[in-house]
């Protein structure tokens, strides 16, 4: 919980810097601050505790996920330096919002009380609305913000209703108490409904079919950095929270609930992959690929008791690959009015390093060995087969075959087409972020135990 406070402090600090006009310092300070906070968080790894009469419960799960979020935020902040070059005046706001967003995210995985959970979601979502619409003069961005806002607040309404029903059934918001009570035999009918409603709300956040429609549009419309944030941080946070919630509520004991999960996960994979095939806008394509990955992540909900580690691993692999990919996209699509695949033509010749990084991240998403994505899928498959859902795995495999189709469309564009124009400059931070992210990804791919064993 010191993490939470520290993060908020950092956010405020950013704003103050703006007042005192230390723009130059903002990014470096934030990065350093985040690093410090990361250390702080990790130090709590082995000291589970609960604060404010169980408002926050810090345990290995929350700590490891929070540190993942912090790392991702680090990358995103580092990227913003180059990304917001042209609006220096608002730099601090953007950074601060990201930091606050992070606080919301951390709250979501650390919550011990549904109130905390709700606040976390809202903090996250509201900051996202702002970021989505953040380029004021750009109609696309506005539209994205609006769509996201409408559907998001609608979803929060659903979640709120679900929480309310749970409260009604249990008479308490405390997750531990609820979890104990949910074991007991007769429960009012609206308790499961409550769970379902909350779940649906979260499914919306991680953009699972049929609650996924917002994702492509919003991803395309929002500024690329925000898209990166949504597709990596936001998605990961949502799935992690959902996982924690359902574990607490023992949702997995209910067979028909598992069927729902199976159906949704298969649907998400299939729809996401098939829709992605014909996209020409890279952000849109990645949005759909994100949907399919959501489907993969949902597979963890089929073996709640054991799959925490593999969820952490999958999310890490996925988000690292995503960060790497998006940093390349940011570099390539700088000062372009769209993110069409045409912009990537001949990147292999003009900028081999970034091209290689993008290729690597795409291969990781496609699940080719030595990249973390492969092991993520492998572990997932192995657990799902153990849980007895071979059919899901077969669908998953067929989908990963389809997915290769569109990932390679991008790779082909980079290596076989002629470059259209030269790009100036080699922004250090972007290169650094992309490189570090992909290297981490590969290292995890070679030594999966590093992460897999954390929550085992």
């Amino acid at each position, binding site marked *: 919980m010191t993490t939470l406070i520290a993060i908020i402090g950092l956010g405020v600090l950013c704003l103050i810097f703006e007042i005192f006009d230390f723009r130059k310092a903002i990014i470096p300070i934030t990065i350093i601050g985040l690093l410090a906070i990361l250390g702080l968080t990790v130090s709590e790894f082995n000291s589970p505790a609960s604060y404010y009469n169980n408002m926050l419960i810090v345990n290995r799960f929350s700590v490891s996920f929070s540190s993942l979020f912090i790392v991702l935020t680090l990358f995103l902040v580092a990227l913003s330096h180059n990304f917001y070059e042209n609006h220096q005046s608002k730099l601090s706001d953007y950074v601060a919002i990201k930091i606050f967003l992070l606080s919301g995210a951390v709250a979501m995985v650390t919550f011990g009380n549904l*109130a905390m959970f*709700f*606040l976390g979601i*809202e903090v996250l*979502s*509201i900051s996202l*609305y*702002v970021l989505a*619409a953040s380029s*004021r*003069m750009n*109609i*696309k961005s*506005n*539209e*994205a*913000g*609006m*769509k996201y*806002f*409408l559907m998001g*607040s*609608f979803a*929060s*309404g659903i979640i*709120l*209703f679900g*929480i*309310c*029903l749970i*409260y*009604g059934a249990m*008479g*308490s*918001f405390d997750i531990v108490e609820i979890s104990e009570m949910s074991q007991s035999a007769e429960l009012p009918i*609206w308790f499961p409904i409550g769970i379902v409603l909350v779940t649906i709300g979260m499914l919306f956040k991680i953009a699972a079919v049929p609650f996924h429609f917002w994702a*492509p*549009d*919003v991803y*395309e*419309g929002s500024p690329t950095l925000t898209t990166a944030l949504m597709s990596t941080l936001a998605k990961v946070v949502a799935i992690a929270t959902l996982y924690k919630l359902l574990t607490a509520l023992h949702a997995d004991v209910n067979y028909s609930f598992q069927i729902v999960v199976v159906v949704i996960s298969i649907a998400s994979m299939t729809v996401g992959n098939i829709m992605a095939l014909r*996209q020409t806008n890279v952000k*849109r394509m990645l949005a759909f690929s994100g949907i399919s990955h959501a489907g993969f992540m949902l597979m963890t909900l089929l073996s709640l008791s054991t799959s925490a580690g593999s969820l952490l691993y999958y999310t890490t692999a996925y988000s690292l690959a995503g960060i790497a990919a998006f940093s390349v996209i940011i570099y390539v699509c700088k000062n372009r009015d769209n993110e069409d695949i045409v912009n990537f033509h001949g990147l292999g010749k003009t900028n081999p390093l970034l091209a290689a990084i993008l290729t690597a991240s795409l291969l990781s998403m496609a699940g080719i060995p030595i990249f973390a994505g492969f092991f993520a899928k492998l572990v997932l498959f192995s657990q799902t087969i153990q849980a007895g859902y071979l059919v899901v795995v077969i669908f998953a495999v067929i989908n990963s075959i389809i997915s290769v189709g569109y990932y390679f469309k991008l790779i082909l564009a980079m290596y076989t087409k002629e470059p259209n124009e030269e790009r100036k400059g080699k922004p250090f931070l972007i290169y650094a972020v992309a490189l570090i992210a992909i290297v981490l990804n590969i290292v995890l791919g070679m030594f999966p135990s590093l992460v897999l064993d954390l929550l085992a």
Partner: protein
Amino acid sequence: MNNILTQIGIENYIFLSVTLFCIGIFGVLYRRNAIIVFMSIEIMLNAVNLLFVAFSTYHQDAQGQVFVFFSMAVAAAEVAVGLAILVSIFRNIGSISIDNLKNLKG
């Protein structure tokens, strides 16, 4: 207070708020004017608030009412942001009908 509940019964409260909630949903689904959509969302939230209060009295515990404050605050914040976005949209395309938001598709 207590006796009122006993007289009326918690179910009725639930039905009422569910009805309100559904009205909100339908509002969101059918109205095309962004402002009115906001209002419908507010109806949904307030339906929930009502239920919170009802449950908290039913359970004889204040947490529910406290939560209502949270949700109100959150709703307010949301709407603030929403309106801000709406304003910039209005400035850009001179309309607040959500039917004009169809540039992003496919």
